[in-house]
């Protein structure tokens, strides 16, 4: 599948937006504030374009990386620049934003717990709108914390698609606190090639 037809693209966007809504509710409860996740473009891009999905490929980003288990394979990444990720840790630890200046054990743990909550809620919402086969048991693996070149993270995450496809699909979601603005976090959902084919078939397109 090297193109995303208009109908199939719209349906995929609709179902991923439901994932974002589910994650919005869970994250709002977790942080104790009204947080909204907004799904960005859902499109197939070539590998070189994908490498810039988190900003300049050589920039360093913090990320909580998770695989998918259950009916779909692939990866999810919750990514942030250091400042934005450390601000998350401060929020969760009820400290003034700016208190954390480096990724210690507590800060990493806060980021990974948040990633787990967001990914579980996203996948639960997705599973609820997929046929039983694809949705059954869909869950993230425990998160791995990484401090990595943005381009390398993307490269690894898309490998499950790149092995079989010339173009890859990335679904990026951004976060904002309602009334306060962008949090600077990005959630990437990257199904592997078989999962993309399953999603496509489930949405009525050719596998």
């Amino acid at each position, binding site marked *: 599948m090297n193109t995303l037809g208009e109908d199939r693209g719209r349906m995929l966007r609709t179902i991923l937006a439901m994932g974002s809504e589910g994650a919005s509710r869970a994250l709002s409860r977790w942080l104790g504030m009204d947080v909204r996740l907004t799904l960005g473009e859902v499109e197939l891009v070539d*590998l*070189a374009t*994908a*490498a810039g999905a988190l900003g300049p*490929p*050589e920039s*360093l980003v913090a990320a909580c*990386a*998770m*695989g*998918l*288990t259950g009916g*779909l*394979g*692939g*990866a999810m990444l919750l990514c942030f620049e250091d400042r934005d990720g450390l601000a998350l840790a401060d929020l969760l630890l009820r400290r003034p934003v700016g208190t954390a200046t480096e990724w210690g054990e507590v800060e990493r743990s806060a980021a990974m717990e948040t990633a787990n909550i967001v990914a579980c809620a996203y996948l639960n919402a997705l599973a609820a709108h997929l046929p039983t086969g694809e949705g059954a048991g869909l869950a993230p*693996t425990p998160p*791995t914390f*990484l*401090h*990595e*070149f943005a*381009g*390398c*993270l993307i*490269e*690894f*995450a898309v*490998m*499950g698609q*790149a*092995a079989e496809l*010339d173009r890859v699909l990335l679904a990026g979601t951004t976060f904002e606190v309602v009334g306060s603005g962008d949090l600077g976090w990005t959630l990437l959902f990257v199904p*592997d090639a*078989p*999962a993309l084919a399953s999603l496509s078939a489930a949405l009525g397109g050719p596998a």
Partner: protein
Amino acid sequence: MPNDPAAPEVTVAIGRWAVVAAPARVRTLLGSCVGVALHDRAARVGGLAHVVLPDSRGDLDQPGKYADTAIPALIADIERVIRGKASGRLVAKLAGGASMFATGAENPARNIGRLNQDAVEAILAALRIPILARDLGGEGGRNMTLDPATGKVWIRSPGGQGREI
């Protein structure tokens, strides 16, 4: 690190390759992909291929993506630049092939770094191109830079100091 910060640098995107002559340098970012640096010391010409997968299985649309098509394409471009045969003149240095995090159980990314390494080494052996240095495997990304003036390759890891191989 390279001692001429003003030297032009060519960046190689994933699944592509590039050839430069000194004083220019060539670099790429690597995760599970393998970077293949080939160097002609006499001509002070070098090239870098960013190999994504081991085997093209006959797919010729993206030659830079696969080890079995990228390495011949890289050599052909070097021969164009030096205007002659590269046979017996080239040496190689390799980097990359990391396994950065667990993905889905069936995801080939789990082992693709190792498969890329094996494919690249087998192809270079068949072409009788000696491998002078390797910086392979592990769990982190790499920024790889080749200086064709010297054949030196620098590797930088996230947040770490650069090292020469």
